[in-house]
């Protein structure tokens, strides 16, 4: 695959190295001449000096035959424009934007960027998973309709303890897909099962229902 990486910062540089190792053809577009020189010395002549949001630079880079463009600069507005120009001017099949401000993730999606990666959100999620007191952890985000796979742990004070699953106010569009208990294999949650403290549920939930699910299994 021919992949163009815009921005030769930490992310762009490491990504380029990883992609080269996998045998892809990679080109970095970087604005800063000294950074460009440094990259070319480090990993061979892969860096083109220029502004990746500029049509002429992208044309020089052979963007029309690129399979993918990844925008990794530290300016969200630049990443947005790079992806839009690549997609609409050069018909690049897949564009990925690094999002520096996590708030921009939804905005970018609405503006037609195929895929966004928010480093801040990823780091936050990783840290949350490591915090033992955290009761609801996001495991996976799915593209459709804002669906998420989450893990919910039933804490000792939960109002759900001692109740059957069918008695709980689980939101209608939520699917409880697995129940994990200490020292046993995961089971399919059944309506008549009684909830214990320490139970872990894996659930598929639509974004706005998350709070209701949390309230049902964790309490206030």
């Amino acid at each position, binding site marked *: 695959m021919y992949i163009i990486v815009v921005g030769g910062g930490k992310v762009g540089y490491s990504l380029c190295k990883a992609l080269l190792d996998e045998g892809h053809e990679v080109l970095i577009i970087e604005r800063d001449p000294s950074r460009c020189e440094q990259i070319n010395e480090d990993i061979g002549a892969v860096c083109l000096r220029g502004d990746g949001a500029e049509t002429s630079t992208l044309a020089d880079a052979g963007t029309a035959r690129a399979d993918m463009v990844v925008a990794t600069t530290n300016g969200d507005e630049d990443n*947005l*424009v790079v992806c839009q120009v690549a997609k609409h001017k050069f018909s690049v099949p897949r564009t990925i934007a690094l999002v520096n401000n996590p708030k921009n993730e939804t905005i970018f999606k609405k503006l037609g960027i195929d895929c966004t990666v928010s480093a801040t959100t990823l780091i936050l999620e990783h840290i949350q998973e490591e915090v033992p007191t955290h009761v609801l952890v996001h495991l996976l985000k799915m593209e459709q309709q804002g669906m998420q796979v989450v893990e919910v742990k039933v804490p000792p004070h939960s109002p759900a303890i001692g109740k059957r699953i069918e008695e709980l106010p689980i939101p209608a569009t939520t699917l409880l897909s697995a129940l994990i208990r200490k020292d046993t294999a995961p089971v399919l949650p059944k309506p008549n099962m009684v909830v214990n403290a320490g139970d872990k549920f894996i659930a598929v939930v639509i974004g706005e229902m998350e709070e209701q699910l949390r309230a049902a299994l964790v309490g206030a």
Partner: protein
Amino acid sequence: MNVLIVGCGRVGAQLAALMDAEGHKVTILDITANSFRRLPSTFGGTAIVGDGTDDSSLRKAGIERADALVAVTQGDNRNVMSAQIAKHIFNVPKVICRIYDPLRKDIYDTLGLDAVSPTTVFAQLLKSRLEST
């Protein structure tokens, strides 16, 4: 008309003053407070410090009630992002943005943004001046 101007440079400040003088309700947004020195002392609108590509700053500046947004910061990409947020997220009825780079302007024309390239406009103006003498 309720107008939100993003970027208080020379153009932004002058546009704000003109619209304000005609009795429109003007709000101007800039990331540095110092830029507001360009506004005339008679300016009766609102000047707010904030980032025009940030939806909460835009909300604070009253984008939900704006009839029009004009994006005239120094950065083409910032203007493009600001204008697209206004148009596609907040459904502002009239959105205009400045894009210096004529090629980039053409792309966003086809994507439905109302964009003006001062480069092209000014070059044409100079050409017609040359021809008229």
